[in-house]
């Protein structure tokens, strides 16, 4: 009894939705302290290349490669985050966007290490690896009614789903804690945060690093989901795409960019029937958002309403 409805293509789209969700969370984490970083595509590529190189050339097991990719991205985050403390707003955005481009150009030109513009192929694919090791242990996916390629796509999806849930849970809990309050305080008024005894420098660098690390993690998962990466995956378009998740979904609540990433990644696929016009629809949607709901689809009052909590004295929030 084959499960025919389980379409590997749909699962692949769903996997990209999840990777983009992780990227959406990563821009939110940095924004939580009021820092707009457009360097997350760069950090993503650092994570992806690190694990690709370690697993294809140095025989690292995949989980070790993913951890290494995240850590290297985090270290790059510290290195970029500290000098960036002097910058705010649009200047920070420009500097981090520049950082992403620099990383990409390095990857294009450092051919001996990165394969240049061609990129790195034959990266171990997590679904295939899992299937291979399960077959060695005597398990056949056919025994649960799945074809090999269905099993591969499904396991990729499930691994990404678990990773995304963990990341969302992590930052959700962080948000409602001492650290999350410090982030919010820094975002709303840095000087008042200092006066409340918060080491604003520490928390800004911490948030920046967490965002970089999560991007690197998403990049590493991306490498092992597609098994092929090239600098073209991490261009300026990717950086803007991540920004749009936050702009569209809303940057005031963790669920905003999560929702934005999900919708905006799935939408072009759903609109495939009108293929040539789908980016027009996408564009109109964004303009409409700017006009009618500049804070993004999801903001804290909406979440509170949906959660059934009535915020006493609500109705007056800053249109930030």
């Amino acid at each position, binding site marked *: 009894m084959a499960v025919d409805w389980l379409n590997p293509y749909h699962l692949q789209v769903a996997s990209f939705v999840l990777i983009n969700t992780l990227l959406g969370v990563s821009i939110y984490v940095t924004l939580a302290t009021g820092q707009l970083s457009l360097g997350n595509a760069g950090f993503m590529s650092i994570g992806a290349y690190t694990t690709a190189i370690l697993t294809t050339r140095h025989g690292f097991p995949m989980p070790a490669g993913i951890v290494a990719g995240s850590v290297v991205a985090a270290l790059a985050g510290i290195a970029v985050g500290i000098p960036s403390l002097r910058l705010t707003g649009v200047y920070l955005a420009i500097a981090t966007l520049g950082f992403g481009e620099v990383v990409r150009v390095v990857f294009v030109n450092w051919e001996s290490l990165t394969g240049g513009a061609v990129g790195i192929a034959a990266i171990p694919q997590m679904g295939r690896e899992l299937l291979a090791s399960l077959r060695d242990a005597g398990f056949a996916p056919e025994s649960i009614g799945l074809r090999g390629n269905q099993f591969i796509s499904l396991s990729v999806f499930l691994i990404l789903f678990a990773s995304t849930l963990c990341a969302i849970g992590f930052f959700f809990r962080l948000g409602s804690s*001492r650290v999350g309050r410090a982030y919010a*305080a820094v975002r709303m008024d840095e000087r*008042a945060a200092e*006066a409340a005894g*918060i080491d604003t420098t520490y928390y800004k660098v911490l948030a920046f690093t967490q965002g970089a690390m999560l991007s690197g993690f998403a990049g590493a998962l991306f490498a092992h989901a597609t098994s092929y990466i090239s600098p073209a995956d991490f261009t300026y378009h990717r950086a803007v795409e991540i920004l749009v998740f936050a702009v569209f979904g809303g940057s005031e609540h963790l669920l905003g960019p999560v929702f934005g990433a999900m919708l905006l990644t799935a939408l072009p696929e759903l609109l495939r029937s009108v293929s040539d016009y789908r980016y027009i629809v996408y564009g109109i949607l964004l303009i409409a958002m700017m006009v009618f709901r500049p804070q993004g689809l999801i903001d*804290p009052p909406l979440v509170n309403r949906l959660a059934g909590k009535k915020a*006493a004295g609500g109705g007056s929030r*800053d249109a930030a």
Partner: protein
Amino acid sequence: MLLDMRNVTMSFGGVTALRDVSFSVREGEILGLIGPNGAGKTTLFHVLTSMVSGASGDIVFRGERIEGLSTHRIIRRGVGRTFQNIRLFPRMTARENVMVGRHTRSRAGVWQSVLRTRAQRAEEDRIREKTDELLALVGLAGKEGSVASALPYGYQRRLEIARALACEPKLLLLDEPVAGMNESETREIHHLIRKVRDLGVTVILIEHDMSLVMQVCDRLVVLNFGEKIAEGTPEEIQNDPGVIVAYLGREEEGDDA
């Protein structure tokens, strides 16, 4: 002495905002810092909390020099402050504002927060308890869930005081806490300031209104054009010829005004 300021000078470009200011604050007193507009009162608070850099002179707080330390370190050592133009976290509730103020008196880091360890949960409970206590103290019981920016002006001032008290300061710096308030609100705030002092917190109070300051403060320091021109009890200050000149001007200059 709780606080000793010795020869503190602060210049912005060519303007000297504070010139060689020295005074001491005794434990448990309410010290009024008064003077005409632009006398350097707020600058003195900024210097005390390292919110401006470039000051010279010594500042000794509880026996240790604090000048040049970063702001959050000074706050951690026991200084709380409010701002002349209220700086709350606007989109947080009243409770959250005060909870942020507990930052230096709690310690949960990233992992404890994410894993919700027992220590972290106990700490959050204590923060909440202390926060509600403080909100009640300043008269905001029942307003815990209100968004700060939606609170009436007078409540915002009280909330800011509660947030400053949340770090359990030894010294509280209040920058014109009654600015823009009517007479009865002003009386309530002054009552609150005395209550805070009775809890063992020393207070430095910047205030414009001389008659009110006379009622609350134990001692006064008068600044004019960045210099200390007088120091003493309210009675002494009231009769100080220099102070009268600073506030009212000389008779000969009266024609210009």
